């Protein structure tokens, strides 16, 4: 029996020491590790100020999209594959929502404002669904918005001087007061994305 007890004690000691190591690592991480870059569910990062232009050339700010839940995605019109697919899928979701689609702001932000003028955005976005707002504007403003929202994008040069954009693939769901609610991703399937949208709308 003593054997078992000492084994038990040793296990306990190991566990306790392991906890000490974990705690120390945690403290060290908090003190010296990278500052959190994940999206906080508490902070209203989607209420941070910005000034952009919609597809009709009208100036919009963060206030234009608060008061209703919203879905945000990022892309560019020189994108043959991922962006049109995302827009078409969003259009299908809005179609399925029916009248409830009015309870939601859906916003497609160009990460290529140098080429995507409001006129280009209008024709592009409205081809898919005129309930989708297309935003473009000053590159600095887009960059600020992206930074505030932990959205990544960068220019990727191609041969011949052209370029493509690498960008955040998922769609961000945002509460009416500008807090992060969740994401939609293509690989989740239509029904899952639909359920998330309904949940977002349901909680206002």
């Amino acid at each position, binding site marked *: 029996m003593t054997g078992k007890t000492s084994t038990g004690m040793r296990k306990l000691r190991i566990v306790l020491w392991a906890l000490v190591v974990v705690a120390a690592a945690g403290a060290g991480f908090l003190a010296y590790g990278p500052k959190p870059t994940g999206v906080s569910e508490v902070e209203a990062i989607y209420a941070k100020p910005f000034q952009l232009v919609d597809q009709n050339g009208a100036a919009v700010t963060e206030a234009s999209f608060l008061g209703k839940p919203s879905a945000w995605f990022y892309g560019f019109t020189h994108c*043959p*594959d*991922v962006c049109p697919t995302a827009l078409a899928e969003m259009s*299908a979701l809005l179609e399925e929502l029916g009248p409830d689609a009015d309870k939601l702001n859906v916003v497609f932000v160009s990460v290529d404002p140098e080429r995507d003028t409001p006129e280009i955005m209008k024709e592009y976005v409205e*081809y898919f669904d005129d309930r989708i707002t297309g935003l473009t504007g000053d590159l600095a403003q887009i960059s600020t918005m992206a930074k505030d929202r932990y959205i990544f994008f960068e220019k990727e040069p191609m041969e011949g001087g052209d370029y493509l954009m690498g960008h955040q693939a998922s769609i961000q769901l945002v509460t009416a007061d500008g807090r992060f609610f969740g994401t939609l991703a293509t690989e989740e399937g239509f029904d899952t994305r639909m359920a998330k949208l309904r949940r977002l709308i349901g909680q206002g």
Partner: protein
Amino acid sequence: MQKLILALAIAVLTAPAQAHDFTSGSIFIEHPMIQEAPPNAPVLGGYVTIHNNGDVPERLVGIESEAAEKVELHQSVVTDGIARMEPLAEGMEIPAGATVSLGDDGTHAMFIKPDRRYEAGDEVAATLIFENAGPVEVVFNVEERSAKAAPNHEGHGK
């Protein structure tokens, strides 16, 4: 029941568009297709399935078309939530006896700066360039984007 009839009607109506193929030696090219894009879209995405019925590997090294300034083979990849596009520098390999699609794993042909607007129902002539089989003339059918026409659930009528 109505939904079923509608689904059947759609299946029958869209079937002829699917039966669309080209052959060159042991290469069987199935249903080259371009997805319709917004009127002002500066790029169009093209897709095709290639069967290599031969016993040597084949490689699609490029696509040419009068309808676009140039055509490039690309792959969209999503890594850590970031979508990027990379050129398929080596083209697309079709191993002996295998079937490979432009469209698998984010691969696609990017028709850059089309010469005009192409709408569903239009056809785009192009040449697929193979390492061994050489050039093969094909026609890409322009089709409505599938996510819009038929999301992956029933009861969506438009």
